[in-house]
């Protein structure tokens, strides 16, 4: 499993989206998110985007007030994951039009749906923005 989880967290450390590809109990999740957020949010712009945590890596990137954190296996390609994050943001941007934290909050299920289009079972299955968005937009009409 390449990707273990995807988190979106705002500057205050509140989780805005959490998608796990392995089952964790609520307590485990709460602990994990707490640790990760503490670790990553303390870092500044001059520092690299990779953090080792427990036995996996976290690749993160900040867009405005939102942090996108992706937990991956150790041999996953960090730069590719950064590209993936960027693709995710661009896709949401295209859909919401200049996406912001509020968009994701209010359309959480849509954001989940987009993620599901892109990632399945921890593997990235779709990297074309058009392909990702077609079903999302189709469903919006129904």
């Amino acid at each position, binding site marked *: 499993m390449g990707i273990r989880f995807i988190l979106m967290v705002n500057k205050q450390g509140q989780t805005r989206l959490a998608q796990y590809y392995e089952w964790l109990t609520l307590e485990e999740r709460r602990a994990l998110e707490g640790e990760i957020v503490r670790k990553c949010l303390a*870092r500044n712009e*001059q*520092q*690299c985007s990779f953090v080792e945590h427990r*036995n996996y890596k976290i690749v993160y990137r900040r867009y405005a007030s939102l942090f996108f954190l992706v937990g991956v296996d150790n041999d996953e390609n960090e730069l590719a994951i950064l590209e993936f994050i960027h693709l995710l943001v661009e896709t949401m941007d295209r859909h919401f039009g200049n996406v912001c934290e509020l968009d994701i909050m209010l359309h959480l*299920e849509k954001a989940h749906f987009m993620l599901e289009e892109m990632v*399945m079972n921890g593997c990235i299955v779709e990297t074309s923005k058009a392909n990702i968005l077609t079903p999302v937009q189709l469903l919006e009409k129904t």
Partner: protein
Amino acid sequence: MSGPSLMDSLFQRTLEDLIKGLRQQLIGEQAFISKALEEIRKEIKSTDLSTKSTALLKLCYLSNLHFHDMSFAAFHALEVLSSPRFSHKKIAYHAISLSFHDSTPVLLLITNHLRKDLTSTNEFEVSLSLQCLSRIANVDLARDLTPEVFTLLSSNKLYVRKRAVAVVLRVFEKYPDSVRVCFKRLVENLENYDPQILSAVVGVFSELACKDPRSYLPLAPEFYKILVDSKSNWISIKVLKIFAKLAPLEPRLSNRVVEPICDLMRKTGAKSLLFECVRTVVTSFSEYESAVRLAVGKIREFLVDEDPNLKYLGLHALSIVASKHLWVVSENKEVVIKSLSDPDPNIKIESLRLVMAMVSEHNVAEISKVLVNYALKSDPLFCNEILGSILSTCSRNVYEIIVDFDWYVSLLGEMSRIPHCQMGEEIENQLIDIGLRVKDVRLELVRVARDLLIDPALLGNSFLHRVLSAAAWVSGEYVEFSRNPLELMEALLQPRTSLLPPSIMAIYIQSAFKVLVFCLHTCFVRGGSTAGVSASASYESFDDLSIENGAGSTVAHGQTCTSAPITNESIVNLLKLVELALSPLLGSHDVEVQERARNLLGFVDLIKLEALNSLGQEENDSEQKGVEATKIIRLVHDAFSKELGPVSLSAQGKVPVPDGLTLNENLGDLETICSDIELPSSNTFSFGYPSEEKDVSSFSNLQIKEDSGQSNESTSLLAEHRKRHGLYYLPSGKNEVISNDYPPANDPALQGDNNDTASDLVKLTAESLVPKRKPNHSKPRPVVVKLDEADEKPVAVKHPESRDDSLSGAVRDILFGSEDILPTSSRSNLPSSNRKGKEKQHMITQVESKENVVGDGNSSSRRRKDHSHGKERRHRKKNAEERNETDRKEKESSSNHPRRHKSRQRAEEPLKVPPQTSVIPDFLL
């Protein structure tokens, strides 16, 4: 109950209302949420599916972002799932993927829903159910739905097919038998030219190949084609990952692949792909000089890049190369050293690892110096990171790389003075360990210890207390090397020692005792009489392991005389000092401190009378009058001058177990006896010293309270203990810098011993307690020190074995069913690898599986190792099945298109022949 009415559903709050409401709550968020949850609980019982699904959606939100349990809604989610409306279905699937897991009770009920949707004509419904299956599939679901997934694998709708491919990974993992059905179609998808499909298939194979690369060697031609043709970076990266796993297994394959990879490296503009090429080359193609050079060139570009990400990755790549091509690291030394002061802690740690990789016995001094300077300047966290890695690198393999121990000991002293230093415990261990192991360094060790002790400022730093305790112990134990014992005494008794914790205070007092005895001994005994040789003579006679009693101390005497002559007046002052400093401690709350202070004061009382007497009239007949005192001093001194040696972790294992023992029941008693001892942290070695000290103090106590005949008896008890358990006491008489006689703590062979005798250890600890309880309470202590390790070991050892039995049984069932060449030869390496597995068990399994797969070429031994993990085991089954599948396929479909057939034939071969033989025909055409 009729459920909520129409009114309720009309005025139901939507998710949006909920979110907006939440945003307005600045303080009462919890109250708001619990109110909302109450509403949801009511609404979700509604018979109206819209109300129900909205409630479910809100619940998902609260569960996902606010960690509220939603398991109560499992059945409701299933109800919503049966709705004909797509939007309801979507919510239901979302809820199910979020909340269901293997132990959800209603999981069984979902099978038919999923099956219905998997066969739906609406591709989005199919997609939703596939998505859901990929999240929640357990064995039953995977088994029951395999036919549907199989059908979808060749669906003509790409959108569905790529999802079916992705879900296969989970299905294989949960239900290995599905491999028989689906594997062929999965492989067919490899030849698909649609990038969507290809990306999914390659992703699946890269995961599969991680677990067991050998099974996928036959597919190498397909992967090769993808590697050469691929336009998508993402796919290329995944294929490179596959080759990184496959190449080490088959040299001809790597010959073939290395060139395209280098081409890719030269041509690509994408940093991610470039880095993947570099990583692939340095991990799996490190014997190809030109490829490595090319990769190293790229690494250098990364290293000097402004982007911290690239820099980090460059360092990371370097650390991969370091194991095989150390020259690469040396070539980039400047960058690495410079990165030590990078603003990013992750980069710093990465470069620290690299610096430590460069350390050898030639440069350890310079590198340590540089690092210690860095440590002085950096923040506490990184400072300790540095110190920790210096300590662990230098002590590796019993100080393998240290040649100049004088230097190292003074480095330890220097390190403990660094303001942020928190490595006190490790430094303590090493100071004592070195003292015990390396005789030649003791002079310097005592000097370092003195410098530490004498500085009153250090006593205020609680992180240093452990170091100080080691320094105190060292200066007491090796006082004969001291230039000025009087000064040492003052340092040990200085008023600020009250800042120390009681356990360390006790060590201080005990060391002061030793120093005092030494001073008295030099002053009286050495100065005059030759009487009372009997004690020391008997002492030496029984102990042939002992080394230098005489030699060492005479040398030392010479030194003390030249540097700081101990005069009678100074002795008087010394005794006064002791009384002054220790009398308050008689009221100490800590029994240990109190007892030791009392011992020492008792001794002083005893000596003072006689000594002062004899001093008063030393001119005429000191020989007669002082003889009593001299005798006592000599006895005590002899007791202290016994050399202590390091004790091997496995020493107890060597002692044969006597018959007819009653075991376990004594262990409870042991607990109560040893609970008050501060054990030295015994991670690597256990030292006899705290317990030995106790021995010594208690029998010197005897000496004081009773006559000297009795003391002789207790000395001989110690001797007896030594004689009987001579094996515990390692020969310490070697004059080499490092004595090689005792085994390193982590010697695998010895641990193997421990495995066998794990239960014996328990017996033994109980046994050695029994006979000694009567004569002297403190006697069994040396064994007690061991106990700590002994009860750790059996747990670590026994448990996995029993685990393994049940696991390997299950695995073997499956392996035997399909594969008749189960390797049995590698059974022997089971225990050790299992223990490893056990130790790491709390860590997540993935890391280790990687280690195993990469590190080990021999697939059979790999298979064995993996038994320690449940997760691994499942993959293993699956792989076995895959092989079986290839077998089967070959038989059943020999008239398929010929190329496939050929590769299937190859698939079989690596199974039937030993892995090393290269009967495999050239993979790439």
